[in-house]
């Protein structure tokens, strides 16, 4: 019986030292995959998405009925179905070449993609940052809702001079998200509660709290209304557009670029980030090195909550300026997990993963309109991406990539690990 076991056992029982559970190791392997795996996962997901398009396409089904007499027809149909679908996806998300004559209209899809990407990147950064400290933040939805409600209240009901109003609403929103996130860190540090359970439960609490406030006159509900919806944002609090009035792209995107740079600096160049990473990689060693692990959990969840909160503020002051509703999260809280996963929990990676997911969201609409392919196909492609990233050995096998260095097992060889469990 070594002392390590005693410390671990003691840590599990004593609330002072919440050690990350073993499953976080597995998550870490998933989140820490190589850029190559992420890229190949996207390719594979698009291939499998194409397969689904082929299988559900009515023309392909018709032509395959007489496949053996005229196989060419089937192949043409397949090519048309897949080619058409992905061409539409491209037109809807990057550049509409059918309207190349008018540059302003042709480039509109790209601005839509970036607009969609804005909250995804912000929330993805929040999830990724927490993850680098070994915390799995599934509370994106709750943090978004609280931040949006806080920013929305100030934006809709507290008149202030221009510019100041916007800044106050933004800051209040970020504080809302920070508090909701910090609460998770506090509970984990003080009681040892697992952050996954806590964040999931806080999602419900936030949702029903906001629903209640939206139905309560004098709270968030618009005066004289019976819908569970706030009043519209005042002009002074709305995020200004940055690419001209005809595009939706607003200042939120700039804020997200700043946030990305900030998180990069925080993790890679700051003393605080050094402690974050040390706690995330090895909380035991961090503790022995004098780092207050519990306080780190609280700090990182405050910052992560504020980052996710930025997504909520963007929703309230940028996208749903007509008034916030309980559904404004629109799945961003959970998509953020996928974005962080695809971005390998690195700020720059999250930024581009967010843009990819924003583009898929934007393109899906065009795909449905132009080719009649259900929007769900894009969701399937997204899901496939997650699936492949979560199973790196599968991707390596499909592309015949070499397995990573087998001698590099810092966390003790499998055998020793098993022995520890039995001791």
């Amino acid at each position: 019986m070594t002392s390590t076991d005693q410390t671990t056992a003691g840590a599990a029982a004593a609330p002072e030292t919440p050690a990350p559970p073993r499953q976080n190791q597995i998550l870490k392997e998933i989140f820490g995959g190589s850029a190559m795996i992420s890229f190949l996962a996207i390719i594979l997901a698009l291939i499998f998405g194409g397969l689904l398009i082929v299988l559900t396409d009515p023309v392909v089904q018709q032509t395959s009925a007489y496949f053996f007499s005229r196989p060419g027809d089937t192949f043409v149909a397949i090519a048309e179905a897949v080619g058409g679908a992905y061409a539409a996806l491209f037109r809807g998300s990057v550049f509409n070449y059918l309207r190349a004559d008018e540059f302003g209209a042709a480039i509109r899809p790209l601005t839509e993609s970036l607009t969609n990407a804005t909250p995804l990147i912000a929330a993805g950064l929040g999830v990724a940052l927490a993850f680098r400290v070994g915390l799995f933040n599934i509370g994106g939805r709750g943090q978004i809702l609280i931040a949006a409600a806080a920013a929305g209240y100030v934006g809709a009901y507290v008149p202030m001079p221009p510019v100041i109003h916007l800044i106050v609403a933004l800051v209040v929103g970020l504080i809302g998200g920070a508090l909701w996130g910090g609460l998770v860190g506090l509970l984990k540090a003080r009681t040892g509660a697992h952050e996954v359970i806590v964040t999931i439960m806080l999602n419900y609490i936030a949702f029903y709290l906001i629903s209640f406030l939206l139905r309560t006159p004098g709270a968030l509900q618009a005066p004289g209304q019976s819908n569970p919806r706030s009043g519209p944002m005042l002009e002074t609090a709305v995020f200004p557009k940055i690419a001209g009035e005809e595009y939706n792209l607003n200042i939120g995107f700039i804020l997200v670029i700043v946030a990305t740079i900030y998180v990069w600096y925080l993790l890679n160049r700051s003393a605080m980030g050094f402690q974050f990473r040390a706690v995330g990689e090895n909380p035991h060693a961090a503790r022995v090195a004098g780092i207050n692990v519990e306080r780190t959990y609280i700090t990182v969840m405050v910052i992560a909550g504020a980052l996710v909160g930025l997504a909520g503020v963007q929703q309230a002051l940028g996208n749903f300026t007509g008034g916030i509703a309980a559904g404004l999260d629109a799945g961003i809280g959970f998509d953020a997990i996928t974005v962080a996963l695809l971005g390998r929990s690195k700020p720059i990676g999250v930024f581009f993963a967010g843009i990819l997911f924003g583009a898929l969201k934007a393109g899906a609409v065009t795909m449905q309109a132009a080719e009649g392919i259900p929007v769900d196909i894009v969701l399937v492609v997204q899901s496939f991406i997650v699936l492949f990233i979560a199973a790196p050995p599968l991707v390596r096998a499909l592309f015949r990539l070499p397995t990573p260095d087998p001698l590099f097992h810092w966390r003790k060889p499998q055998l020793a690990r098993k022995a520890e469990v039995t001791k």
Partner: protein
Amino acid sequence: MKLELRGITKRFGALTANDHIDLVVQPGEIHCLLGENGAGKSTLMNVLYGLYRADEGEILLDDQVQKFEGPGDAMNAGIGMVHQHFMLIPVFTVAENVMLGNENTKAGGVLDLEAARTKVREISARFGFDIDPDAKIEDLPVGVQQRVEIIKALSRDAKVLVFDEPTAVLTPQETDELMDIMRQLKDEGTAIVFITHKLREVREVADRITVIRLGKVVGEAEPSATNAELASLMVGRAVSLTVDKADAAPGDDALVVSELTVTDHVGQVLVDNVSFTLKRGEILCVAGVQGNGQTELTEAIMGLQHRVLGSIVLDGTELVGQSTRGVLDSGVGFVPEDRTEDGLVGEFTIAENLMLDRYTSEPFVKAGTLQLDALARFAAEKVTEFDVRAQGIATKVGRLSGGNQQKVVLARELSRELRLFIAAQPTRGLDVGSIEFVHKRIVATRDAGVPVIVVSTELDEVTALADRIAVMYRGRIIGIVPGDTPRDVLGLMMAGETPSEVAA
């Protein structure tokens, strides 16, 4: 049964862990496999036990070529293994553990526990073990747990028995008893492979010795060879086994520990009313079998234990109640006993690990921002000074060997202004060459006038380094004796007895 390994080669990528290794073990023979950590002993045994598939070469039992797909095949063929980390389930009884993986059932799938109990009693009787088949593993002392492992192997009619570093967890007395068991097994005709890096044990029981270095057999030796001969064969150069140190020149009292008691979260006493004084320029070794409160004692000093009574005063400053940060800032350097778990962050580079507990102030941090240039210069300097063998300062510490990892920890802790240096198990798992280096640095620290506490379970290390020795047993200090106290006296003290000359 005769075991023969022919030309076993095992590669991991570019690294050849075993390079055409030949080994013959006759029935009724204890064959020692001697080598430094990372020499390839464990890889070889994992190949033998079916855990790895060899790239080349074959395994023969009684001249029959064997094909092992997994440990199950190896066990069926008559190979048993007593692992360094016991493969026992703590909440199961002895009998249940012995039958695990080889369960006999009665009609209707009911476990035949009685058969297992009989087997345990029968084997126990044969070797004079006194083991209750219905005792739970977690209630048994470590030495007895090891016997359960042996019984488990023998219950499957193992004719070849591999002991992988079996003495690491035992007291000197338990080690002697294990040696007796091994001799008895040998007399019954069992072929025994004994893996170790402790020279004294090798010379005591081995019939033949094979030395492995860097994955190759570098020589065979007779048990009559001297320690120095064996060590130089193992390391590939002449090594000094004794630590050159001048007599201590102790100064004033630096550390005063009085009536220190540490309890765990259920109120169990881990350190029991311990008091001692440490002078500047003196090495106090804390000896004792693993798990007798030494770990908790060092953790209490470092502010890593939460339920601490009593006082620890370093140069007039009370340490009890301070945070770990505060203790480090008071000038305490600490080498934790589990370096991979508590001393280093494996995913961090050498440079990052060198600033792991210095993230608050200059030279590495200015205005909350890391000073990467200053860190790089510092790291390059320390890597040279402490002879850390790595490709560069950006190498991840997890990729270094144990010895180099420990040098990184030492480099970090010894490059601050120290007023107390604590090294727990500083050479555990290190090769002979690294041990030499670590010991030299510890003595140099003492000679610089720093009070030093070394916690070690290895008597060789204790007697080599100590100016004074404190022996711990069940959380108490049994006695503090001079550094030249004979081994057998220390051994008795480690088992909880207070010899008359000590008591006087």
